[in-house]
């Protein structure tokens, strides 16, 4: 149902903050403090199991990559600005403000300065998103060269995609799986009778519902299910049980679809 893609398609890349600490080492993960969404004891327990294994896997797979990354990146994270030559340019140059070309090694989490995990504090997403657009939006580069306007168009589109993907749980979950090289074959038919019968019942209930009260009741039921399966994804992903993680995202998709129908009816 899912397959692991070849290694190294999307590479982490040092951000300026972690640059000094990580320079010269093989490990390339940004050393950001864990986002305090849970009591500190559980946060420190849950992250190492997932992330350390990931680090080991990545560096074993393609050790040469980190060296070549460092070479082209000027060794201290970020890239070299095409306009003024300053180092540490990330999406836009910190020194001269020029918009940089897209770096395919940058992932959405890095753009928002977040650790690559499912549970993010997304109330800071919108603020960061707006900050980025103030620097990258095409409307702000009217007077710049055509080359830079092109960069701005691509970068702001990338930031929009990143924002949209990260701000919703299901898309965030699927993106995390993608970063792990898991491509879900979504076109495969499923025949899990328990799930499908439940979905049939929910969809029928939504269909038959005639007043907003009933619909709202169904909505809260769906919401609870979504939360359950969201937690299930988190758990499975942390344990790197990707089969169950994918299963959880499929369930979430079904519930979100049902939710859409209730919203349409209301």
């Amino acid at each position, binding site marked *: 149902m899912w397959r692991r893609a070849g290694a190294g398609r999307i590479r982490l890349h040092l951000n300026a903050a972690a640059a000094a600490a990580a320079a010269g080492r093989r490990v390339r993960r940004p050393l950001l403090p864990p986002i305090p969404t849970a009591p500190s004891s559980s946060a420190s327990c849950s992250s190492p199991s997932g992330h350390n294994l990931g680090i080991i896997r990545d560096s074993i797979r393609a050790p040469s990559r980190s060296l070549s990354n460092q070479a082209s990146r000027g060794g201290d994270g970020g890239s070299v600005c095409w306009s003024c030559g300053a180092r540490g340019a990330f999406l836009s140059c910190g020194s001269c403000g020029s918009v940089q070309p897209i770096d395919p090694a940058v992932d959405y989490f890095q753009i928002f300065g977040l650790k690559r995990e499912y549970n993010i504090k997304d109330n800071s997403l919108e603020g960061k998103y707006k900050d980025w657009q103030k620097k990258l939006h095409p409307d702000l580069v009217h007077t710049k060269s055509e080359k830079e306007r092109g960069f701005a168009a691509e970068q702001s589109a990338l930031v929009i995609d990143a924002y949209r993907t990260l701000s919703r749980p299901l898309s965030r979950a699927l993106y995390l799986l993608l970063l792990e090289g898991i491509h879900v074959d979504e076109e495969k*038919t499923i025949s899990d009778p328990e799930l499908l019968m439940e979905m049939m019942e929910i969809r029928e209930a939504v269909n038959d519902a005639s007043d907003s009260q009933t619909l709202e009741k169904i909505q809260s039921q769906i919401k609870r299910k979504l939360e359950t399966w969201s937690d299930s994804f988190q758990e499975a992903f942390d344990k790197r049980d990707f089969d169950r993680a994918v299963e959880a995202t499929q369930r979430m*998709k079904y519930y979100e679809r049902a939710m859409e129908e209730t919203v*349409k009816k209301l």
Partner: protein
Amino acid sequence: MMLRVVGKRLLGAAAGGQASPALAPAARRGYHERVVDHYNNPRNVGTFDKDDPDVGTGLVGAPACGDVMKLQIRVDEGSGRVVDARFKTFGCGSAIASSSVASEWVKGKQMEEIVAIKNTEIAKHLSLPPVKLHCSMLAEDAIKAAVKDYEAKKVKLAKADE
């Protein structure tokens, strides 16, 4: 495949089951008139009692769009022919039309014939665009699932009689 995550937004909007507004500008969106016909005049919508020994129920889903499709066949035990069919589908216009077509095509046929119905035939009949091919696949799978269920039931009942 990677496109699927990003493009899912687009699929979700189009496929979503926002059937009425989506099909209203049918020409613009490109739904074939047969799809529109099956959507506006669905044949065989309904439910058989799934515990009825003559009924086979196929329940399938497409995780890509969160669609659910149920196809039921009523089989005449003596001749092995499908005498009636019902379907119920929650999904986009193409999914609904595909299952509607399937419910029509199985009538009057033998089991061996209906399991041979290919999604490509359904897709061709409805002029489905490539992005909707999986809807016809879902219908083909639903037919097979219904047959499988009927056969399994028969085996179970035969064992019970022994």
